[in-house]
């Protein structure tokens, strides 16, 4: 299931309310939206009408927007359903006042709204983000995280920007950078920017000659990268495929335009791989530990049984900050070790040189 995030909801609101991004951020209760989104995300995966209902009820009751809250709530609901491949069969000009009134005063909750949504739900031809991929890949992409899916959609956008009528490994690399998550962070640390990659890609293959069509197929090498993404995620014990796993897939494939661009820009694939693997492994173990701790805690005391998700998020956030600090310190230690090795070699070289001049370096 593709969930909306805060920025998605605000983008819908800005469009519907006809105000700019700054105005919608200033005039909206962001915490209220966050609560509605968190509640929807906590719902069972795969149950789109239920998650949609939770989000809708949250927005209608919280009224986070400056005005036209009902209008925005319905537009957000339609966007959420659309991204997951659904639409609502509403009569033109349908009178939904009674429905909104019942939600607002508590007579209707998530179950009633989920029933309503089911009763008027229709399937779109396919989820919008799936337009980036072919039918054969659909099943595999079910396991991609929201951010990984976003990276794939952004890769397609990058291909279009370069007038390429296919999605190659180079576009996947650019999509990962544009997505801005963990993979992008590692690439930035290696000095890899989207602008630099685009320049190298244009040097290697140039822009396309014709405007690309609606569907951009994956190249065989990109399909190989996506297969390797699955392998890399499983090696690291992750059920979900994240952007960093795609980056590991790109590195493992090692021959496409993306690999060439990384090499030209001076990225060391071995070092990059080591950094991603170390961090991913640590994060996975930490999240597992936190999850285990919370389950045990809730079972024994019941203190946090009502909000394990919220507590989980806060704990993971705090631990992630600690891990980042830990990683920084490790990286500094590694640099010092490297410098020490270099100095030792220099001392050895100078000692040898002294001996060639018949000087004993130890006397």
């Amino acid at each position, binding site marked *: 299931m593709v969930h909306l995030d805060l920025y998605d909801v605000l*983008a819908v609101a800005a469009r519907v309310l006809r105000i700019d991004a700054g105005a919608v951020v*200033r005039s909206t209760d962001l915490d209220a939206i966050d609560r509605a989104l968190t509640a929807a995300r906590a719902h069972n995966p795969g149950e789109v009408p239920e998650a949609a209902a939770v989000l809708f009820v949250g927005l209608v009751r919280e009224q986070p927007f400056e005005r036209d809250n009902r209008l925005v709530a319905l*537009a957000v609901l339609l966007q959420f359903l659309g991204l997951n491949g659904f639409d609502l069969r509403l009569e033109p000009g349908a009178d939904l006042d009674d429905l909104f009134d019942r939600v607002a005063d508590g007579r209707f909750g998530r179950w009633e709204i989920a029933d309503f949504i089911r009763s008027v739900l229709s399937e779109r031809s396919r989820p919008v983000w799936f337009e980036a991929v072919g039918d054969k890949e659909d099943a595999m992409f079910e396991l991609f995280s929201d951010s990984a899916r976003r990276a794939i959609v952004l890769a397609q956008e990058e291909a279009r920007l370069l007038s390429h009528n296919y999605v190659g490994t180079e576009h996947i690399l650019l999509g990962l950078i544009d997505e801005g998550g963990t993979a992008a962070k590692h690439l930035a640390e290696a000095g890899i920017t989207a602008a630099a990659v685009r320049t190298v890609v244009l040097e290697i293959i140039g822009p396309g000659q014709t405007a690309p069509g609606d569907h951009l197929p994956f190249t065989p090498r990109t399909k190989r990268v996506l297969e390797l993404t699955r392998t890399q995620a499983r090696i690291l014990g992750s059920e979900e495929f994240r952007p960093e796993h795609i980056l590991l897939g790109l590195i493992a494939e090692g021959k496409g335009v993306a690999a060439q661009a990384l090499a030209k820009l001076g990225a060391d694939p071995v070092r990059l791989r080591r950094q991603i693997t170390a961090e991913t492994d640590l994060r996975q173990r930490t999240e597992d530990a936190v999850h285990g701790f919370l389950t045990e805690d809730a079972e024994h005391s019941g203190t946090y049984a009502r909000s394990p998700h919220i507590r989980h998020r806060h704990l993971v956030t705090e631990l992630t900050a600690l891990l980042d600090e830990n990683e920084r310190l490790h990286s500094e230690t590694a640099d010092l070790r490297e410098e020490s090795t270099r100095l030792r070699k220099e001392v050895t070289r100078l000692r040898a040189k002294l001996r060639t001049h018949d000087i004993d370096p130890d006397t």
Partner: protein
Amino acid sequence: MAKEATKNILLRLDPELAERLQAIAQVEGRSVSDVAREAIAALVEQRRTDRRFSKLLEENLVRHEETLRRLRQDD
């Protein structure tokens, strides 16, 4: 009814972003909340220019125009 601009914005941001925002706020002598709101607005703008996202949104607004217009009038 809209409330005042949100507080504790950092709770919603991942620690790396929070750290970066804190650094920017310190350098520019502004509050972290101000810088965070600016960053959120930039990300909202990014979504608005996302072709697929805006295409779906426009489709929805056109398909359900009458129902939505009715809500605008009633709200």
